[in-house]
């Protein structure tokens, strides 16, 4: 009896197209990990997985924000600049007041990012500026401001307090802080987007913006909110970034937004809004982290790395489409008209 139930559950898991994307991605990750493992035995060691997760954590945190933005049919190109700016300002603060508590730095960066996100959010929701334009404009403005506040200087490791650097190198229950922060954010985000009203309204706004307007969802506020959250996460990531690499520069994370978008889309978040799951997002971010970690490990020529990364992304999305089509085909055969 129980067995049968299990079986039917498994069957529905595999046959339903709803879960299909995530499963496909999961198997793709398993496959690619095995291939890499065969080439370099150190890949699947605990310490390398730890490294891989640490390096992937910042990207994953940003992907959370990007997912919300994409869900509402928006896009945010400014996050690379926000990372640099918030990282620079919090590093400058720490170098001026070394006794500052690390949590204050985290808060500072988050608030700075939140402010930038708020500007974009207002532009998009109140003034109907297209997200791509608002964020493109802010990308330039914020990047410029980063150079201006730093006066072209860098903030280096010796100018940062140990507490500040510990944000990224310290551990909590034996796990690196960055991983802990990322996991906490994912759990909170999962709860938020799937189980709270506001979370569901984010999906609703992206799923049918016109309906949202007439059915009384505070559409403008929701849209503003996703940019604010994206900004806050980018601000937080900025502090983490600077603490992680123990150096704040004006050109930190140039072009990083495209990596984040690629990872998010790889995770099955649709650019046309309304659909995508947290599990897919996590897998997309992990796949991206694996690529970044593994290519140097298996001694792929550095000049091949970019091409391979692109080919893997393309293959993943195309294979996904092909298999989906196959699924639809068998569904049609089963319909038996």
């Amino acid at each position, binding site marked *: 009896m129980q067995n049968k139930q299990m079986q039917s559950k498994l069957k529905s898991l595999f046959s339903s197209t709803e879960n299909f994307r995530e499963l496909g991605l999961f198997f793709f990750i398993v496959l690619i990990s095995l291939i890499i493992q065969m080439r370099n035995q150190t890949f699947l060691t605990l310490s390398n997985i730890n490294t891989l997760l640490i390096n992937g954590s910042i990207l994953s945190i940003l992907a959370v924000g990007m997912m919300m933005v994409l869900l509402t049919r928006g896009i945010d190109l400014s996050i690379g600049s926000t990372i640099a700016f918030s990282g620079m300002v919090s590093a400058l603060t720490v170098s001026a007041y070394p006794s500052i508590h690390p949590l204050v730095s985290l808060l500072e960066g988050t608030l700075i990012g939140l402010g930038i996100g708020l500007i974009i959010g207002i532009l998009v929701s109140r003034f109907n500026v297209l997200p791509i334009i608002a964020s493109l404009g802010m990308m330039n403005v914020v990047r410029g401001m980063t150079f201006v506040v730093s006066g072209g200087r860098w903030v280096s490791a010796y100018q940062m307090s140990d507490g500040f650097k510990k944000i990224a190198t310290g551990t909590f229950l034996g796990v690196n802080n960055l991983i802990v922060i990322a996991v906490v954010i994912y759990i909170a985000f999962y709860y938020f987007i799937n189980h*709270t009203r506001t979370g569901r*309204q984010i999906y609703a706004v992206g799923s*049918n913006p016109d*309906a*949202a307007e*007439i*059915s009384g969802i505070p559409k403008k506020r929701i849209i503003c909110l996703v940019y604010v959250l994206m900004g806050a996460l980018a601000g937080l990531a900025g502090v983490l970034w600077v603490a992680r690499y123990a150096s704040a520069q004006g050109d930190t994370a140039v072009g990083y937004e495209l990596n984040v978008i690629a990872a998010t889309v790889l995770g099955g978040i649709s650019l046309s809004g309304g659909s995508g799951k947290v599990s897919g997002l996590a897998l997309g971010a992990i796949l991206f982290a694996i690529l970044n970690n593994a290519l140097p490990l298996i001694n792929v020529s550095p000049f091949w790395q970019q091409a391979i990364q692109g080919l893997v992304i393309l293959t993943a999305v195309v294979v996904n489409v092909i298999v989906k089509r196959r699924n639809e085909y068998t569904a049609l055969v089963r319909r038996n008209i």
Partner: protein
Amino acid sequence: MSEYILELKGVTKDFPGVRALDDVHFNVRTGEVHSIMGENGAGKSTFIKIITGVYTPDAGEIIYNGKPAVIRNTLDSQRLGIAAIYQHVTSYPDLSVTENIFIGHEKYNPYTRRIAWKELHARAAELLGQLESSFDPRVRMGSLSIAKQQIVEIAKALSVNARVIIMDEPTAALTNRESEELYKITENLKNNGAAVIFISHRMVDMFRLADRVTVFRDAKYINTWNRDEITHEKLVKAMVGREITQYFPKRNVHIRDEVLRAEHISRLGYFRDISFSLHRGEILAFTGLVGAGRTEVCEALYGITQYDEGHIYLDGEEIQIRHPKEAIDKGIGYLPEDRHGHGLVMDWELFKNISLALLEKFSRWKFIREDDEKKSAQELGDKLEIKAGTVFDKANTLSGGNQQKVIVAKLLTADLKVIILDEPTKGVDVGAKTAIFNIMGELAEMGYGIIMVSSEMPEVLGVSDRIVVMKEGRISAVLNTEETTQEEILHAALGEKKKVISHAE
């Protein structure tokens, strides 16, 4: 306290270039169904959007429960207990049925802020049960058929315990049987003390349901009658402004040689073994229940999708149609079911819409000649009596019936032999319906072969020469209109056996 729960006085609303409502009056009591009728573009939808706060009126007042009410947005109207089911389904395809029903007023735990899923799912199932449909409320809205989505919309209105419920053409996408369900639901609502405002183009709906009926014409208020005070003819006259003597102006057309023949065409998962023939001057109706696969067949004939097996002959020669362009070049035209999505570029001027199907005719060496376009738009527009000021009017400023005529005009630019009309009268008012049938008759007379998809029995029986009935992707009957009856058609559309009844050919 007035006797009305909702009263509107002197409401006026302007859109750029159009006055959609002009000094309109309306009222509704609790426990009554009040129907609003009128031609396409008479302002009915605009009127209810004013009640629900989507639009604000330029003049006039709204009195709710005896007190003047200010409704600035949809939240205001929801708070007052007004719920609406809009003409175009306004659901969220990516959310579950439960969420669609309760969006905006979900129950949640005040401490954890978690939505009370269990309770909501149960309540949703209960509401759906009340509506006598029992699908899982956890499924994605987008995976449901339009009819089921409509039911969810009703459940949504029920969920708020609204005192005023507005339904804008809820039956347009429903079959007779489903409409019957809806009548029952509506009557229940009324008996439970709700005021129902019901908009429909179907006379049957009105006579079956309404206690009173109000007619709008050309943005103006005409009159309000009790149901027993008014006859069918009087109502039509009030709506259209003139008498209509012949609803199905069928002409006696001489049916000539065969123009199109399909032999055993099939498409995996959609239809199988479809064979029929069409003659010049003939109107061939395709009928059946919603989802029977009629649209799929039409789209395969027109090259939007491909059939896997079978043969199609045009004028006796076998043809392959891989793209709509080839269909048009060979002489097959198609009026799609989804006017807004597939038929028109809504943001475009009339003349551009009309010339779109045959741009090369309006160009020389690929260079567009706008003067030709405008002239042709003017000619066709006048011929089809499209109500528009200039050829620069945007398609989205026209009413449904006129939009339909624009698509017909578009087809007439091409040199066609066969015209396929998919639900050409759906959501179209009586006057425009007659106009469309008139056009069909004229086209038949001119020698076009016409395929008309329709779910309305009277019009199928009224205008066609022969009837193809489809059921679950197969042809279940081919009937001669003159020799058949409504019962026989319904039997073929619903019947259990897959045997083909045929007394034509």
